[in-house]
């Protein structure tokens, strides 16, 4: 469940509360996503150079909300939700913030001596 944050970034509510139906029939779910996106932009000071970029990032943000919900189901002992990376696609995230070469243990690496682990 993505956490709702106030503009100051503190948690105001650990769960997304189901928004009651509005008179004008606005889709509550959409309202929630837009609401979260505006909090996200405020909290992480996100500014997009064009309306087109903004809309593109909003689409990615919505997909990442769903991804956070999936992660929450797969990883219930942690809390998953909106982070500073919520407007990045998984591949943008990997390309920008990860950076380990394809990993194999170098065969010539020294093996650490076995240490005693009792008392």
């Amino acid at each position, binding site marked *: 469940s993505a956490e709702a944050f106030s503009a100051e970034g503190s948690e105001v509510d650990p769960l997304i509360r189901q928004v009651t139906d509005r008179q004008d029939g606005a889709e509550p779910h959409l309202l929630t996503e837009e609401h979260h996106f505006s909090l996200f932009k405020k909290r992480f000071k996100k500014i997009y150079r064009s309306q087109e970029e903004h809309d593109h990032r909003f689409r990615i943000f919505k997909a990442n909300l769903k991804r956070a919900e999936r992660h929450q189901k797969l990883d219930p*002992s942690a*809390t998953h939700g909106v982070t500073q990376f919520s407007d990045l696609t*998984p591949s943008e995230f990997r390309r920008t913030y990860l950076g380990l070469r394809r990993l194999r243990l170098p065969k010539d*690496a020294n093996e650490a001596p076995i240490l005693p682990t009792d008392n």
Partner: protein
Amino acid sequence: LPEDFDWREKGAVTPGTCGSCWSFSTTGALEGANFLATRKLESLSEQQLVDCDHECDPEEAGSCDSGCNGGLMNSAFEYTLKAGGLMREEDYPYTGNDRGTCKFDKSKIAAKVANFSVVSLDEDQIAANLVKNGPLAVAINAVFMQTYMKGVSCPYICSKRLDHGVLLVGYGSAGYAPVRMKEKPYWIIKNSWGESWGENGFYKICRGRNICGVDSMVSTVAAVNTNSQ
């Protein structure tokens, strides 16, 4: 082995973020080892590794450390051993890009590698090396970290394909898991994405099943006591 252990409480972990995770993991482990050897906590230069370390994995042609395109902690330790050591962060500050030339100044070395080795995929051995030798350079699969906010992460399913370098700074015997009402032993990991991510920049991941490959590639490093020189 103590039930709980945390190098942050012993002053062996510097603050700080960095975009190049493999150099972040390398400098973090050497900072801890240098603290153990000299009792001084020095923030070491990731930028020196990004600009100067192009060490290759002898077993894999073309697998060389290369700034923002990725690197390996073991190759970075090898570079540091050959180059003589790392400079302080303040003497070789982080610029966030890898287009600069190498500005290494041997006269300003702040920490030297004595040796480094790989710890077997055995959680007791990892914990013992952590307690004895200081924070450890580890690799992990970071797929759940993009949405992680807090708590003990223990995904039912997580790839062990390693794509991120972090620093193992401690472990806890029980992290309260509200949903499944279970106490979970966990590793405490320092990540390089700043204090607004995770638990003030730290990540907790449960122990016991090599979750997300966290036990697969663990390196420990020993530093030379430069006080005596």
